[in-house]
């Protein structure tokens, strides 16, 4: 995997996207999986799943993200499906690490909101 490209995407998402900072661990995991999964579909030409309101929201966030990626990182439009999936998987792992696994936020695992 091209770590420089992955770092570009990661830095951008950290700085820009509120969906990674949900209140609890499960909110963060759901958003990271949902938005980036949909972004991967969009970047690889697969039609997004839009059956539930939550899936439509993932699509709304992912569409904005993909547009920003393409505008800021033109190389992503030339990446093949395998490379896109690899980058998005790497991005997911990095976001889970900073926002969940190694987050210092002491409120992430409260059972109640």
């Amino acid at each position, binding site marked *: 995997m091209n770590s420089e490209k992955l770092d570009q995407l990661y830095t951008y998402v950290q700085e820009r996207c*509120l*969906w990674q900072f949900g209140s609890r661990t499960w*909110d963060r995991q759901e958003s990271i999986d949902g938005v980036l999964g949909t972004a991967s579909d969009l970047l690889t030409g697969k039609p997004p799943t839009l059956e539930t309101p939550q899936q439509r929201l993932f699509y709304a966030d992912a569409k904005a993200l993909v547009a920003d990626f393409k505008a800021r990182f033109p190389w992503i439009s030339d990446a093949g499906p395998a490379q896109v999936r690899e980058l998005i998987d790497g991005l997911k792992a990095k976001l889970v690490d900073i926002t969940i696994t190694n987050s210092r*936020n002491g*409120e992430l695992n409260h059972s109640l909101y």
Partner: protein
Amino acid sequence: MPMVLLECDKDIPERERHIYLKVDGEDTRDFLPISNAPTIPGTLSERGCSFCGAKLVIGGVLKDTIQMIHGPIGCAYDTWHTKRYPTDNGHFNLKYVWSTDMKESHIVFGGEKRLEKSMHEAFDEMPDIKRMIVYTTCPTALIGDDIRAVAKRVMADRPDVDIFTCECPGFAGVSQSKGHHVLNIGWVNEKVGTVEPEITSKYTINFIGDYNIGGDTQLLQKYWDKLGIQVIAHFTGNANYDDLRGMHRAQLNVVNCARSAGYIANELKKRYGIPRLDIDSWGFNYMAEGIRKVCTFFGIEEKGEALIAEEYAKWKPQLDWYKERLKGTKMAIWTGGPRLWHWTKSVEDDLGVQVVAMSSKFGHQEDFEKVIARGQSGTYYIDDGNELEFFEIIGLVKPDVIFTGPRVGELVKKLHIPYINGHAYHNGPYMGFEGFVNLARDMYNAVHNPLLSLAAIDIRGGAAATSQEAAE
């Protein structure tokens, strides 16, 4: 660079865990300020109380609701008129204030009878008003007055009224934040789902965490109207009590202030399956992104693009005029919590302003994760800052302008540093496209005000010595 122990904090070294200076190569896995924690003895906190978080921030915004404050008169006065949230019905919420005016005898013998009498009196005096929120305060909570039982009795006597009780005395939590929480959860437990709203559009949202400061809600409402989107409830800017009882019928929750109202958005998702979209409503780029996302959710992207193009054509030239003159300005943000992360990148991207220090009164670690991810290296991130720390930080970062509240604002004015009211705005609204131009104008007028340099000149001459002698 890890956490910072300021010189002024040498006798309260625990403060080191609350102040962070970001440097390149670090992130929130390495350091994250302690926050939403009790104020350390010895520090002069700028925080408000938990009752204030419920009443002043959220409940008191409602435009058709009596805010009955069960406590001494000061609890009412100090949470009234210190925020500017107008309404489209003549500012009912700003004109009136209600209190049971508890005195020593009521504390000794109990205040429930006095509360009941006050509630009836308020409804009798305002026969058109049928909604009320009753708040406990520190003394009435301590003596155990049962405000829920009193509210039930009043509702039984008056079948046409509805009353919500908020049991959040000032001491309930470490700051205003607890009051946000209690009101959010209480409302969704007791009131959401008790009114069926009239649905007038295929597209429905709740707009959560916007309190119509300086007219924010009313400005954003123009956008929703143009897009054909029905806002079932604004939580709680320019809102009616019953609007908020119908929140369960929206298709999407759009959240601006995640700190004061993220709780109800989470609960609406959990209980009613309504997804939560977090957006930033301050700043051109952010506002456009928020509109795009809402429109994508509903499949009305063309309408969104048309609105954005129209607003950009109207306001972007003005924004750019200010950007040209504000570029390189050093700004400090000392507000409640979320405005730190809402503003730091928007002023940087849209106005070329550099945010050099940020302090939060009641933010949680989630807020610090967001702001440290967005903010610059070389910037200080402070939880629950005190006045001495502010002085020291000012010396370290030398801001050109500080966005904060009027009390801290008066402090920094004495140092000849201009301040902008970061809570209630100088000349709002600040949200949306037009609003961000207002923010830019206020910042420009503050930073370039010629009085600023004149104020530093002592023109008293010999009179100065006379005054000093008189003072001695």
